[in-house]
């Protein structure tokens, strides 16, 4: 074997967007997540499913160093984002700008709709009105909100309806132009029609960014995710290509039970 077999350059040569090794998250003495190891490839939609208290949100929080703000939250293990150990990153603000976050409950900031979306570009110093207008319109369009709010961009974003606020939150995350988008059960406060619209948006966004989708809807993971991890009681039980979860090819009985709705 002298000549190596030709490899498809796109998949194997590129390093993973996210490389998590043996991640453990503690709140005081309580262990929320233990020994989690997984990789997320670039331009992948990576699903995380599991019941409450499985450690899903703790996992997301440790990716962009939000634990700096939570007293008593400690993490061990390593998280490498785009090849860099996040604990070693000096400019944590630049790190957070590259990672967009959408929370379970919509957070419309008490600013105008325009200012909500323009906030992140302004934080990094953009003042140009034309450029800001362009970003605001593009992000609101992508979040499927533009048509509903284009005539009242000066109104308060915090007074929109729940589903609209959630799309505003997504528009705000997109305005950061992130490499990685973290979605934490985004459809909890959103009606089914809007959920479907957002899911369509996510499929398009996949061309430009990597998405980690935490969801308590197993079918949502099935519709969107390339691969899915199953978290249970603070442990990452299994990671598999999403279809295998539903065709019964997964090894772990607990995963099968959860996917088939047999978990209490």
């Amino acid at each position: 074997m002298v000549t190596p077999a030709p490899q498809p350059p796109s998949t194997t040569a590129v390093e993973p967007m996210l490389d998590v090794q043996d991640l453990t998250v503690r709140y005081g003495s309580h262990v929320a997540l233990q020994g989690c190891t997984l990789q997320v490839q670039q331009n992948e939609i990576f699903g995380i499913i599991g019941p409450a208290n499985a450690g899903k949100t703790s996992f997301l929080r440790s990716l962009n160093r939000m634990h700096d703000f939570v007293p008593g939250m400690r993490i061990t293990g390593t998280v490498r984002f785009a090849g860099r150990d996040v604990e070693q990153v000096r400019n944590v603000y630049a790190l957070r700008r590259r990672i967009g976050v959408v929370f379970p409950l919509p957070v419309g900031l008490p600013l105008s709709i325009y200012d909500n979306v323009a906030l992140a570009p302004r934080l990094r110093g953009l003042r140009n009105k034309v450029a800001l207008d362009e970003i605001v319109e593009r992000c609101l369009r992508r979040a499927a909100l533009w048509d509903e709010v284009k005539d009242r961009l000066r109104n308060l974003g915090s007074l929109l309806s729940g589903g609209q606020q959630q799309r505003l939150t997504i528009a705000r995350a997109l305005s950061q132009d992130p490499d990685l988008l973290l979605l934490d059960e985004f459809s909890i406060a959103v009606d089914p029609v809007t959920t479907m619209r957002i899911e369509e948006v996510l499929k398009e966004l996949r061309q430009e960014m990597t998405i980690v989708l935490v969801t308590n809807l197993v079918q949502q993971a099935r519709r969107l995710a390339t691969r899915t991890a199953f978290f249970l009681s603070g442990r990452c039980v299994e990671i598999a290509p999403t279809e295998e979860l539903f065709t019964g090819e997964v090894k772990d009985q607990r995963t099968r039970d959860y996917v088939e709705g047999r978990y209490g």
Partner: protein
Amino acid sequence: MSGLDNRFLRTPREQRSLTQQSLFRLLFLVMTSLLVVPVFGILLVLIVRGGPGLSLDFFLDKPRKGMTAGGIFPALIGTLWLTSGALLLAFPLGVSAAIYLSEYARDNWLTRTINIAIVNLAGVPSIVHALFGVGAFVLFLDFGASILAASCTLAVMTLPVVIVATRESLQAVPHSFREACWSMGATRWQTIWRLVLPNSGSGILTGVILCISRAVGETAPIMFTGAVYWVAYTPEGVFDQTMALSLHLYNVSTQVPNVPPGLPFSVALTLIGVVLVMNATAIAFRMRLRGRKRW
């Protein structure tokens, strides 16, 4: 009558709880109304007895004939100096402290010590503040008995009020807003400046109102530190001594012989008027800030 209608009849037990409910409602209403009595009583007495003495001359003239005649102009101006001075000192200090405690401080022994200190500072009697002011500002910092020393003393006394009111209003801004802002790469200060402060303005102004009300009315802290019985002139700088309405009221009520009976009431009415005008200004600001629902 069908059996269904019977279900809307009151049982004796229901009747009893309804009677109880009315009685307790009446009781609480009476108790609440009692609160209003002193307020209107005070205002009524002051207006009836002090109102006739008020005139433009009364406000713009200085006291004459051993303080038994003339007006209160130097005291009025002096109170404005003292209150503004106290506010200028207490406001930046208090708001800064509140921002630190609410937005930066972690829960450790230092923070807990500071919080205990603030609570205790609020409980110190005003006469003790007066003695502290004499020791610290008049003597140690060598301001002399002056507007500056008196304002500093008033500022120390009103600080806890400003801090607590401001901290409460900062805490009233939901934590999720901060997290959303941080997750976009904002620093703590960017979050405070763009998000937290603009949404806590009305609460901070409440602190200002309380600060003014206390500073205008206090007598003890200023009587040893910068306010005097009588000066003919109005102050020209912070190292001057000055008359003050509250101290003037004390003097004409108890110290000066042969005062016409209406005069103390007129002074008291003016004092309350100054508090009301200053408060009304702050409240008007607050209404504008609060005008629309933010979330």
